[in-house]
């Protein structure tokens, strides 16, 4: 048993990070009460990476992507579906939880913030018929439903979601145009070398592209009518459906005015604790200083949400047991599926000043290593899992051997505050 029966932990957020915090607290025998505020979606947690890939392609259903629950939630875990944390009390350890029109104030001994991100939708594009974003199961199901009429689709934005969306629609043999803000898809994530490869794959699979183009206006002729897109070069086109892949914005407005660092997500120390040490963050929302990379980052990927959630629980428990909370030092990892190819990347390429391109894997596809000041900080490949994963261990070892200057000690909540105006979000970086 850990903790004591009088304690209450509030977990805000019902996706992978929140789910993992709850299951980890139960697994470690937390003796108190858990209040799990699962958010507006009102669904059990599911695997979000499947939405833009297998779900759109009809290979899986809402039922089959539910996250597994190893054993039933304990009797001291209260699940609040459709409820959100609307406000944190600036002066007390208390949150205001709202569900429909009902309000409840809940005092906590610890609060885990796992509220993640929402799709970024410019205000002028919001709520237009025929215009979709893709973040939630409901978003994906709405898009999937529209596929029955075999729509001509324009995908706006060529980061992860936009590129995967284009590939999934092509696998359903639907016509797709991809609007790329820069000159290459996925360029901000992967750089020019792999970005060029991505572009070739889109073309080889029948996607038409507009490069160096942004959408300045959208107008819709109604639920069944076409959408007209206006571009920054003054041209226009029409589509039956538009899918926006413009990145994500963190959802932590409800923490505003409480002395927390909200400059990009929720700022934490290396151990994932905020300046109020019984408030911790995990997943897409967490902005922490990575002890190996030596700078702050926010990572919007699956593996990070799961590992950080587990780590945040350990950090809180360590504090309870007068142990020194550990720093979160996992090397980021993500994958992407496009046209039957598996893209994988380990590390964090921000600030790299050198790239090496070679071939790896049975397909002989490009394999890129990214260096900063002579040290490998990231690697990416296509259908080359062994080559990519070998680099994970190497990045870890190299950076651990010579950690970057200006390192701060774990447990100091004020350490490593981001320089003013610095953007650390990978998705923002990806635009």
């Amino acid at each position, binding site marked *: 048993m850990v903790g004591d029966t009088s304690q209450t932990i509030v977990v805000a957020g019902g996706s992978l990070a929140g789910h*993992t915090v709850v*299951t980890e607290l139960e697994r470690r025998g937390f003796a108190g009460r858990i209040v799990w505020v699962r958010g507006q979606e009102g669904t059990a947690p599911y*695997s979000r*990476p*499947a939405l833009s890939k297998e779900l759109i392609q009809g290979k899986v259903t809402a039922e089959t992507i539910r*996250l*597994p629950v*190893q054993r039933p939630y304990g009797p001291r875990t209260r699940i609040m579906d459709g409820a959100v944390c609307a406000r944190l009390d600036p002066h007390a350890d208390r949150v205001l939880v709202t569900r429909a029109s009902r309000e409840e104030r809940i005092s906590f001994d610890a609060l885990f913030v796992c509220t993640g991100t929402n799709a970024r939708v410019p205000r002028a594009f919001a709520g237009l018929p025929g215009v979709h974003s893709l973040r939630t199961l409901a978003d994906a199901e709405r898009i999937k439903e529209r596929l029955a009429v075999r729509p001509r689709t324009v995908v706006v934005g060529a980061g992860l979601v936009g590129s995967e969306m284009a590939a999934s629609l092509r696998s359903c043999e639907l016509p797709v145009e991809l609007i790329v803000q820069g000159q290459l898809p996925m360029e901000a994530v992967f750089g020019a070398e792999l970005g060029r490869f991505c572009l070739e794959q889109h073309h080889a699979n029948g996607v038409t592209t507009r490069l160096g183009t942004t959408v300045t206006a959208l107008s819709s002729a109604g639920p069944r009518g076409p959408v007209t897109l206006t571009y920054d070069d003054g041209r226009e086109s029409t589509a039956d459906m538009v899918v926006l892949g413009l990145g994500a914005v963190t959802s932590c407005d409800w923490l505003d005015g409480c002395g927390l660092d909200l400059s990009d997500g929720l700022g934490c120390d290396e151990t994932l604790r905020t300046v109020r040490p019984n408030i911790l963050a995990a997943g897409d929302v967490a902005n922490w200083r990575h002890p190996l990379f030596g700078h702050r980052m926010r990572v919007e990927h*699956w*593996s990070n949400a*799961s*590992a950080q959630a*587990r780590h945040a629980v350990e950090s809180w428990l360590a504090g309870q047991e007068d142990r020194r909370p550990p720093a979160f030092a996992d090397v980021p*990892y993500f*994958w992407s*599926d496009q046209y039957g190819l*598996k893209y*994988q990347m*380990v590390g964090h390429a921000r600030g790299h000043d050198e790239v090496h391109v070679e071939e790896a*894997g*049975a*397909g002989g596809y490009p394999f890129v290593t990214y260096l900063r000041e002579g040290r490998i900080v990231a690697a990416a490949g296509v*259908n*080359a*899992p*062994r080559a*990519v*994963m070998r680099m*994970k*261990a190497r990045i870890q070892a190299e950076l651990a051997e010579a950690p970057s200057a200006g390192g701060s000690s774990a447990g100091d909540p004020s350490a490593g505050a981001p320089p003013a105006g610095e953007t650390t979000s990978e998705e923002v970086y990806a635009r």
Partner: protein
Amino acid sequence: MKISVDRTLCDGNGVCMGIAPEVFDIDDDLNLHIVDEIPDDPAVQAQVRQSVTSCPVLALSLEE
């Protein structure tokens, strides 16, 4: 501890291989190989448990 994989679900996403590289190996055709089906080392066992709960397609299971 015994690990099993549902090959109809496994997609070779590599999350398990990132967590427990001594146990999980994925080849360039994206087939998962379990190198050590019954690991003894408690640290490795902890990595395996984490891999099972972190699998994005829920393909891994465990008999303890």
